[in-house]
């Protein structure tokens, strides 16, 4: 009598445990399901279309008709045989390199400076950086445009006053180099706060005693930086550099708005602008899709380091 009762009890308990375990195993999937569905639909479907579009002739006419005409790889052939594409790619690579190097070098120097100044100056400087960080990009572009306009821009006035040269009515938007340099300045200015504040947080991990001991032993500042500070900052520098490369390679808003639609030519295209002008503005969506896909592939290659690093962090929890 008693053992039989126990068995039924056991069985029901085992069944219940089986169910709780099954439910528990499905819980995480239930939790991520909404996001996976939303992203799958809103991003997955357009990505499928991107591939499809890139093999079709698809202009305004096809957009209204809701159907493209298959042309095989003609779009890719057209893009890869376009000298504008190759010039744009080269220009974008040079532009990205300049931006990233300037951002990282100046950013590191400023972070090191933050450690050396007095508390008051540190608070002042870091609040200033946070203020700059908070500026919306479109707003920053308008300010930059106002400061550099040739008629009464304050930049021309200040440079002339400082005796750097005669910049009276100097037109900063006259040459491609000058245009892109302004864009670089704008981007570096906007990117510095994030880099400096992140690196400064990393510098807090540098052991004080070690630095002091090295200094007492007569180590030069450069050696202290190379042998103590740099190894500690290395993981953060790696992440910041890869993020900067990815962001600057695909940058659109700053160059598009600062140079201005009317002054954008095939001679000052960056990758995103090339794609915007050739694909969207000229309503040649098929060719635009081919350019997009090529660009996405390049960014995917650039992102490998960063994504791998972040996945490792995510997995470790």
């Amino acid at each position, binding site marked *: 009598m008693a053992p039989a009762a126990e068995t039924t009890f056991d069985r029901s308990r085992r069944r219940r445990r089986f169910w709780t375990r099954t439910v528990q195993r499905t819980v*995480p999937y239930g*939790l*991520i399901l909404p*996001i*996976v569905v939303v*992203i799958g639909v*809103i*991003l997955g479907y*357009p990505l499928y279309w*991107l591939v499809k579009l890139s093999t079709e002739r698809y202009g305004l006419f096809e*957009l209204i008709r809701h159907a493209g005409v298959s042309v095989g790889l003609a779009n890719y052939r057209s893009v890869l045989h376009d000298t504008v594409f190759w010039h744009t790619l080269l220009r974008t690579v040079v532009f990205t390199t300049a931006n990233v190097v300037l951002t990282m070098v100046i950013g590191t120097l400023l972070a090191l400076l933050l450690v*050396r*100044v*007095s508390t008051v*100056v*540190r608070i*002042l*400087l870091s609040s200033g950086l946070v*203020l700059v960080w*908070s*500026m*919306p*990009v*479109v*707003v920053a572009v*308008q*300010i930059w445009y*106002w400061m550099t306009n040739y*008629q*009464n821009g304050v930049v021309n*006035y200040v440079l002339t006053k400082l005796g750097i040269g005669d910049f009276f009515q100097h037109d900063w938007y006259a040459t491609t180099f000058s245009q892109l340099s302004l864009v670089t300045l704008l981007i570096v*200015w906007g990117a510095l706060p994030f880099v400096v*504040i*992140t690196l400064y*947080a990393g510098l807090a991990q540098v052991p004080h005693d070690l630095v002091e001991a090295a200094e007492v032993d007569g180590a030069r500042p450069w050696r202290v930086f190379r042998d103590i500070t740099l190894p500690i900052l290395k*993981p*953060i520098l790696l*992440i910041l550099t890869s993020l900067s490369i*990815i962001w600057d390679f*695909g940058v*659109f*808003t700053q160059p598009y708005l600062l140079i201005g639609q009317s002054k954008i030519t095939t001679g000052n295209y960056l*990758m*995103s602008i090339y*794609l915007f002008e050739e694909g969207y503005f000229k309503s040649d*969506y098929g060719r635009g*899709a081919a350019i*997009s896909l090529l*660009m*996405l592939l390049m*960014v995917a290659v650039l*992102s490998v380091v960063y*994504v791998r*690093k*972040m*996945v*490792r962090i*995510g*997995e*470790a929890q």
Partner: protein
Amino acid sequence: MSARRRGRRARQAGWNVVGIAIFVVMVFPVFWMISTAFKPNEQIISVAPTWFSLHPTLQHFRDAIDKPYFWVDVKNSLIVVSVTVAISIVLAFLAAIALARYGFGGRKLFIVLVIGIQMLPQAGLIIPLYVVLADYHQVNTLTGLIVTYMTFVLPFCVWTLRGFLLGIPKELEEAAMVDGSTRVGVFMKILLPLMGPGLVATSVFAFITTWNEYIFARVLLNDQSKQTVTVWLSYFLGSSRHTDWGALMAASTLTAIPVVVFFLLVQRRIAFGLTAGAVRG
């Protein structure tokens, strides 16, 4: 000893000077925007600049607000931003719990998805999004833009919330479970209140990125009465040679104010959330 200390103090004074100089250069554009916004026109157009105007005026702000579509576009921005953030934060919180508290098959793939999407250059997606949304007659509607924004806001929110969740010890929840609380009970009584600050900070940051977004709004909304405030601001210059600089800077100031205020409130938390992993890893 004292000579050495004096040397050190002199060096620090030098660094302070450099620090203040850099502060001036970095902050100047922001200062110049505000200063111009309050300046009378004759001071704006003169070649020799006036640093501080002694006769400030609010006229430029009136002009900016009276420009066509300002209020409509502000309203559009507010609708797009609040709907996007409200939906995203709920969905992202669920997924963040899955990431921070459960091990499951496919977890790594999900992380790759969350990180990878944030790296996609937005310009690379305008063409297919435009064509697909046009197919469903969602170009020029706020719905189309909201849906687009969600793909980018969601992964960001998942990752940031996951960081905040990891800061809450698992033991708290386990103890409550032992005491007989249900999973839902634990969620309501422990996780939700403790995550309050994290949820607020993440929402605010999502609010900022959405409010600032330019390229999708530019491509997906053509009608001037349907645009967001960033696109409105970008069209402000027009093509005339006589730009109304005062009104432009007033409009810029107005666009920036909500962002700056919110950003200053949450910057510390988010900056920590962004880098905590990097510093630890």
